[in-house]
């Protein structure tokens, strides 16, 4: 009953060792820190910034302390990007995040983040938001042209946004000229 290191055993050992050698040096690649950020974390930061420049009429809120409700369409895609904004305040109002979909009847949202590419869903949501004081934010080519207020797009791998001022006016929202300067202006609907 003497154990002998036979050939297949050594081969097996070699395969394992070889794998370890290949992976070992490859790992630090994960640590590289470019001046880049995952899509939704960047969008969350943008949105947080943009909200500072948008004013809702008094009647959009129950009282002076009631929070700003931000409704997110696809919270799977956005993941935990909004998590660190949960305790933030904008002009004394707390931020509250909710999930919503196009089939919901009542939309008690101040902001709707329509992160989908589906035109049908975009259309339904824009129609539902209609003349309510809701800031619609999208991320698809035609969103602003279809009547959405803010739309994210990428140019040279950087995040940009466009604004449809007519749609904002229709919704009764005041958009500061500060951000109109850096946005691409879209007319439509």
């Amino acid at each position, binding site marked *: 009953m003497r154990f002998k290191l036979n050939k297949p055993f050594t*081969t097996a050992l070699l395969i394992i060792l070889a794998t370890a050698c290949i992976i070992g040096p490859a790992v630090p690649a994960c640590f590289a820190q470019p001046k880049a950020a*995952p899509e939704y974390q960047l969008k969350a930061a943008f949105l947080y910034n943009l909200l500072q420049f948008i004013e809702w009429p008094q009647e959009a809120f129950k009282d002076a302390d009631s929070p700003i409700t931000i409704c997110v369409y696809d919270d799977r895609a956005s993941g935990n990007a909004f998590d660190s904004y949960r305790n933030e305040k904008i002009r004394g109002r707390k931020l509250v995040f909710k999930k919503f979909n196009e089939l919901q009847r009542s939309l008690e949202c101040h902001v709707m983040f329509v992160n989908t590419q589906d035109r049908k869903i975009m259309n339904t949501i824009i129609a539902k938001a209609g003349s309510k004081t809701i800031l619609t934010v999208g991320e698809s080519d035609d969103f602003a042209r279809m009547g959405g207020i803010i739309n994210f797009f990428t140019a040279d791998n950087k995040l940009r946004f466009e604004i449809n001022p007519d749609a904002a006016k229709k919704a009764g929202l005041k958009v500061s000229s500060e951000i109109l300067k850096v946005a691409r202006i879209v007319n439509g609907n």
Partner: protein
Amino acid sequence: MRGVMNFSRRLSLIAIVTSLFMLFFLPARHSCNAQESNQSPDLSAELKKLNLNQLMDIEVISVSKKPEKLSQSAAAIFVITQEDIRRSGATSFPELLRMVPGIQVARQGSDAWQISSRGLSGTREAGLLIDVRLDGCSLATDNLQAVDIVLGNIERIEVIRGPTSSIWGTKAVSGLINIITKHAKDTQGGLVTGAIGSGEEGYSGMRYGVKLKEGVYCRVDAKYQQFGTVDDAVHIREPENKQGTFRLDWDVSSLDRLMFSGSYGTHLGESFDSIEVGDFRWPKIDLYKSKVDVSGSHLMGRWEHTFSSTSDMVLKFYYDQGKYTYHDQGDDINLPHNINYSSYDIDFQHRFNLLSWNAIVWGAEIRVEDNTYDKFPSFSINPRSRIEPYYSGFLQNEIPIIQNRLVLTLGSKFEYNSFCFFQAHPSARLLWTPHPQHTFWLAVSRAARTDLRIEHDINYQVGTMASPGDIHLLRRGILEVSRHGNLDPEELVSYEAGYRVQPGSVVTLDLTAFANYYHHFMTSTHLGYAEWHPRYFIAHWYFESKMHGKSCSVEAVATWQAAAWWKLQSSYTYLNYHFYPGEHDTGYQSIKDLSPRNQYTLRSLINITRQIEFDTNIYFTSRIRGQDLPSYTNLILRLGWKPMKGLELALIVANLLKDHHVELLTAGKKNEIQRSVLGKITWTF
């Protein structure tokens, strides 16, 4: 010596598996550190401090892997959603596929279905098969009895008709069904479900999902299903399934995701065995049932990593093993015989942009299949046990000819194994989007099928034959099987064209047409004589690749959201094909006209109130010429009621129009599928 060989092979396998797990875990642990150091929440906190102008300088890494938009693919794709599954009234996976155009589903008994894509039936031993994949991993067995899918765990099912071998390989010659299961995050909490129906049909299942820590989700579930006597055949046992599964999702960071899943299940069923009686050319087949016990399990691991918005990779490991045990009843040999199979699969895929405009996807895969046929009385297979490696790789390049308007996709898979040596499956696809609402596509592909092990290794089959002088005098004997020279691989060349249009926001229309040319299909031919001995006979058969054929078809689907509460979907399939067999071929018998010429479906999903749903599913199938079966219409009605949050009740009536009907013969025998009623309750908490 043989034992040593086996041992060394197994050891190598163990080594490969261990290496693979290192591949999984090492980067995972480091990614964890990466998460702490550079991902959320620190990065979020940093981003929060920046103003708009600063933010505009930061590069975007797109991590939400958006599934390719349906309207943007140059292939005949149909997607079955969770809502479709819930409202179809189906309790078994094959029943779901009835709504897909171009797919033929025939129920042959309580627990037996036959599925084929574009008319090539799966029962033909040498037939072209449709590839069924679970989360991208090809199921080792083609038998849907062993593959029990818990319907409630399905996120969606993507069905691609036509050859998809340029990426998926030899099994996907006539189509691909990819079952995508839900992320464990979406199945948090508990679920208990039960169903009871006429004919002792029954179902019970439970599921529980928990969040282990931030970003780590897990679920386990168990189910028991009794198929009952849906058909009117004589049953020697009540078919039933038991299964347990788990899935663990670890969203390590926004750039790395890990998934592990596994299952163990058993199926107690029946199988049909046949004795051939009579003339070689027109054998009369006597059928008897035997018991079959199936048990199987799988384990899967997947690592997805995103490098940038245009580059990512997926590494998968899949292990599948199982055992079929047959207990013969009708034969004079009562020894149980069995098949043991296991397969190991490592698959890597990488996507990146070359020269900023070429989108390249490439991948490599090694699969090792190990199967043993044990104590089979009716045929001999040599070697009895075989470990067979399959190597493959693919390369695909997406070339935009006119930005956002015209895209050409060229690609091919290359495969190597000892059955077929080297095979290539090239394809070219052209996608033209002249307007966001209109999409046209064209495709040409070549696909070839690898021999099944049983085709390659079979030596002889035991059969029964009538004596040439007296047809009532039966004699048992041996059918010797040999291969006649070098067999060419079965080959398909397919030309496809499609058009999709979305005229308004509520209507979509999807049209596909194709012409398929089949070459070198395998035929089995006998030499026209048998050696008769007083107690037995010996006959000689050989395989040739003599058959060729062609088929053409039109498939159409229209979807109309008539109102917010009413969705309609209708589809139509026309299929026509001809096969020209070799001389005296018997394989031809089973391929000839086993698919309906016309299929029509209509589904209506109505939300009567917020709590009450009323769904109608109509499936029409025209007659099966090859078996002289009349056309039939399945009408399935479902009434759903959600009396309170988390509780759902449903009443389902299937095959309402007729007491019973036959969908496909099983070895010449009719199994009548009967009308059935099913009550179902689902409670989530």
